[in-house]
């Protein structure tokens, strides 16, 4: 009950933010919403299936580069087309990668995803002619729902239409993910996480379910990556580097992987905390490292875990 209230309040605040909050903080909500979409997907794998990917920056990269290619090479500006294409390409890449990765669990799964992530990173960095190498590619301003909004200054575009567009995508993604995790499919994933042998004896095709979860999470990450592009206006390989994969796992853990909304909270706190710490001290990595260490050691359930104590935290970390 109180959870619903908090959710409604959070949504209400997000809807009103562009009208009341300072522009800069409104703009910071954009990467938050993009990451939140990606993290919902990551957590289907992490929290619900028990597989931690250290290469999901790969799919952020796929989504972002899809948008960059479509807008600056193919002159296709429609954000809907970009999102669909990003999702499709994310699935296309994830299908074979996932098929290879889900044969393993735990550390081997993590390492294999990391290796694939680095292959992609090296590819975009090396194929200078195609991808612009380290300089990346411009992600031109997309049209939203067919409306060309060229006249508006970029800041107003981002703090206005694009903000609500991202929010709509996030809400939609959340609803779909909510359906997924509460469907029989989602329940099967949880069974696999807690006891793969039991799942197998129950007749659940463990590998196939893991693969599905992998592909869905990749689609989410690609959509998140595509949303991340327009605020920066440029897409570059650092988006796909392994430390970026580490960061998104960090966000998930910070918010709490055992809770549905934990990762969303994690993305929010991470972005605003980083913004604040960076403007106060130059050595923000030290502080972030310490925070991460403290969470891992003292509060593995993350912020959501501190708030509502859920027994499932223990179940998935055993």
């Amino acid at each position, binding site marked *: 009950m109180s959870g619903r209230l908090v959710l409604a309040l959070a949504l209400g605040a997000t809807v009103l933010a562009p009208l009341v909050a300072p522009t800069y903080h409104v703009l910071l909500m954009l990467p938050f919403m993009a990451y939140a979409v990606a993290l919902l997907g990551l957590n289907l794998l992490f929290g619900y299936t028990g597989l931690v990917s250290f290469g999901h920056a790969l799919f952020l990269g796929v989504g972002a580069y899809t948008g960059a290619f479509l807008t600056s090479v193919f002159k296709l500006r429609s954000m809907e087309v970009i999102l669909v294409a990003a999702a499709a390409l994310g699935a296309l890449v994830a299908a074979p990668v996932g098929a290879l990765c889900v044969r393993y669990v735990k*550390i081997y799964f993590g390492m294999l995803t990391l*290796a694939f992530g680095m*292959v992609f990173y090296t590819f975009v960095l090396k194929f200078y002619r195609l991808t612009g190498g380290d300089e990346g590619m411009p992600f031109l301003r997309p049209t939203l729902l067919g409306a060309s909004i060229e006249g508006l200054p970029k800041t107003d575009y981002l703090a206005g239409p694009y903000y609500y567009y991202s929010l709509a995508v996030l809400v939609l993604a959340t609803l779909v993910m909510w359906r997924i995790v509460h469907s029989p499919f989602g329940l099967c994933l949880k069974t696999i996480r807690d006891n793969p042998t039991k799942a197998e004896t129950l007749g659940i095709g463990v590998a196939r379910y893991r693969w599905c979860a992998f592909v869905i999470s990749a689609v989410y990450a690609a959509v998140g990556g595509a949303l991340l592009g327009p605020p920066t206006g440029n897409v570059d390989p650092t988006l796909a580097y392994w430390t970026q994969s580490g960061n998104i*796992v960090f966000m998930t853990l910070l918010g709490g992987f055992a809770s549905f909304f934990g990762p969303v909270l994690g993305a929010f706190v991470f972005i605003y905390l980083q913004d604040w710490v960076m403007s106060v001290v130059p050595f*923000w990595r030290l502080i972030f490292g310490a925070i*991460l*260490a403290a969470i891992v050691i003292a509060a593995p359930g993350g912020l959501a875990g501190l708030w509502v104590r859920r027994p499932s935290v223990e179940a998935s970390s055993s």
Partner: protein
Amino acid sequence: MLSGVFHGSILFLVSAGLQVVFGVQKIFNLACGSFYALGAYVGVSAVGWYVGAGGPPALFIAPLAVAGLAVGAVGVPVERGLLRFVYDRDETFQLLLTFAIVLMMEDAIRMTWGTSPRSTSGLYLTYGRVGVLGTTVPVYNLIVIGASLAIAVLIGWLLTRTTFGWIIRASADNREMTEALGVDMRRLHTTVFTLGTALGTLGGALVIPATAAMSEMGIELIVEAFAVVVIGGLGSMRGAFVGALVVGVLRSIAISVYPELEMLLIYLIVIAVLVLRPRGLFGGPPA
């Protein structure tokens, strides 16, 4: 070819540190690259102090190695203060904790030594050069290769011929049983982690006369060390040895044959190994 072997021997030291820790504690220590960087910076400072104090240049390798090994002692507080809390957690949490150490060490190094690259000036060529297989090689490179080989042999001996090695292998196979036999796991963990750290810091210290210390050298190296242990097999010392040689030599061949491929080739091999033989070339049976 030989240049690849030199790079491979440094990679071996760092990967060996990674393997020792993984073998016993089952922790994939991302921070081994940071320890490598730490060793490099401490090495520069130690040699600088030594030369400043008027020590004979010919013996600079002594303070370098001593400093490299000694700073491995940071392994003790890291293990006692952080890692020991997560032994019974999921591997993911352990991995993330070492990622946190990577973040912290990067800034700690920057706060201590600043951002400029640090290097020992001319000591690299103190021991002169020799011609090997038609190319000129600094003797120092050969010393490092030799030292690395000696350490490999020493570790092999330690693991197979001593009680300590027996305990390590036993606890790698079955932690509970070893503990039940009366082994003090607490001390073992601290010792093993410190040993792993010292191998990394020694690697960093030994490489420094040939290069310069830069704050991001750790992040760069961890990716290569990762490739080494995957190719060789997690937890295997022989694997680290062969993997380091493979990565070092392949990289050097790729550079002279088709430079574009350099790192991509390494990752592709990593993936191939993971897919075809996930335990690596020398990996043990499934844990």
